[in-house]
């Protein structure tokens, strides 16, 4: 009995978190018009979650592209198809790896700091203090971070994909000796701008940005006001974001294909 009770709690807890986050979203959107007054705050958050994430996104993108080209070159050489390395790198990056890996990195780099920051504001009663000063914390703290995440993710996805393709080019063409023209012409012949770049990368990036930011802001906003609570909330942001990203990725892929 005692073994079953935590499991039921876990399930109910998870469902409650999902429902709570779902109810939190309309509150965020309702605060959107009021948050335009704090436009500078949105810009500052965009700088923090977007521009400051560029280093890790670019480094990881480069290495993902490089390892992808290296792996594919050896597999494709079995079939004599090394000329399509560029195509496969581009398609894999646009459709899956670009948005998903960027979103996972984004959850780890930006999501956690959003949760920790808002959680600490909650724990130290800064949010209540704002309310006392007639500053709506939803409009000043929550919505700018949510908005910044949604704007930043597609841009980060683009940068990640670009670096991944350049990394693939570096390994495939410069090191393994695939012909430069073949690499690009096969890619341009098989990658479609709507199906792969817009549907595959941009929409997914937007969706992941929204989901990760929502989870991060919600977890921070509703954290128990203790140091332990903030720690748990930060962990839950990463866990819930990762699961949500991969699950939504499957659903989106099924719909967009």
């Amino acid at each position, binding site marked *: 009995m005692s073994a079953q009770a935590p499991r039921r709690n876990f399930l109910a807890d998870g469902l409650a978190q999902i429902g709570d986050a779902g109810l939190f979203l309309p509150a965020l959107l309702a605060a959107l018009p009021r948050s335009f007054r704090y436009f*500078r705050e949105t810009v500052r958050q*965009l700088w923090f979650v977007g521009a400051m994430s560029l280093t890790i996104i670019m480094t990881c993108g480069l290495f993902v592209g490089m390892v992808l080209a290296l792996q594919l070159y050896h597999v494709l050489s079995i079939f004599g198809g090394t000329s399509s390395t560029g195509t496969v790198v581009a398609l894999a990056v646009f459709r899956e790896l670009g948005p998903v890996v960027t979103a996972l990195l984004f959850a780890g780099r930006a999501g956690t700091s959003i949760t920790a920051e808002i959680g600490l504001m909650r724990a130290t009663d800064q949010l209540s203090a704002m309310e006392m000063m007639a500053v709506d914390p939803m409009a000043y703290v929550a919505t700018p971070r949510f908005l910044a995440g949604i704007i930043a993710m597609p841009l*980060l996805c*683009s940068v990640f*994909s*670009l670096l991944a393709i350049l990394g693939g080019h570096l390994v495939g063409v410069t090191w393994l000796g695939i012909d430069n023209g073949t690499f690009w012409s096969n890619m341009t*012949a098989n*990658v*479609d*701008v709507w199906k792969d770049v817009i549907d595959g990368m941009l929409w997914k990036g937007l969706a992941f940005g929204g989901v990760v930011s929502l989870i991060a802001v919600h977890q921070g906003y509703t954290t128990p006001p203790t140091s332990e609570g903030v720690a748990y909330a930060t962990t839950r942001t990463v866990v819930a974001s990762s699961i949500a990203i991969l699950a939504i990725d499957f659903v989106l892929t099924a719909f967009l294909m």
Partner: protein
Amino acid sequence: MTQRRSYAVGTGLFIVLGFLALAYLATQTTSLANFDEGSTYDLKARFTNIGQLKDRAPVKMAGVRIGSVKSIQFENDKLDALVTISVDKRFDQIPDDSSAAVLTSGLLGDQYIGIQPGGSPQNLKNGDTFILTQSAMQLEDLIGKFLVNGNGDKKSGDADSASKPAPDAGQ
């Protein structure tokens, strides 16, 4: 104030960089890079079988890409496939007795339309139709023919061996 300006500039740079990356990806790594808009003319070709030919498949002459497949329709009255191809306006010297064939790049590659030039002094114009066409080579048909021929050879071989003893018997 300087602090504020520095992050505003950083954010602006980030947004510009993101959109530049997106623009580069959208125009340089996709089929948009091969687009020559407005400067094409259409030709038609009828095939009894197009195999796995798809829209936007390349059209090649002497192995060089000169255009792409615009549309593929089934013609109800003629019971064949009408393929409309758009060819770059720069390549307007295709003789009107040229033939179009559905070919495969490599053994298992994608299919494309290859044009064999003829010798006519007249050139194909917008809306013209190829008179000579060659349908896609179906691997299954080839295997089928090979199997049938193999059996046929065996049979004729049997017939030979059967007919051979006959003269012996006659002697």
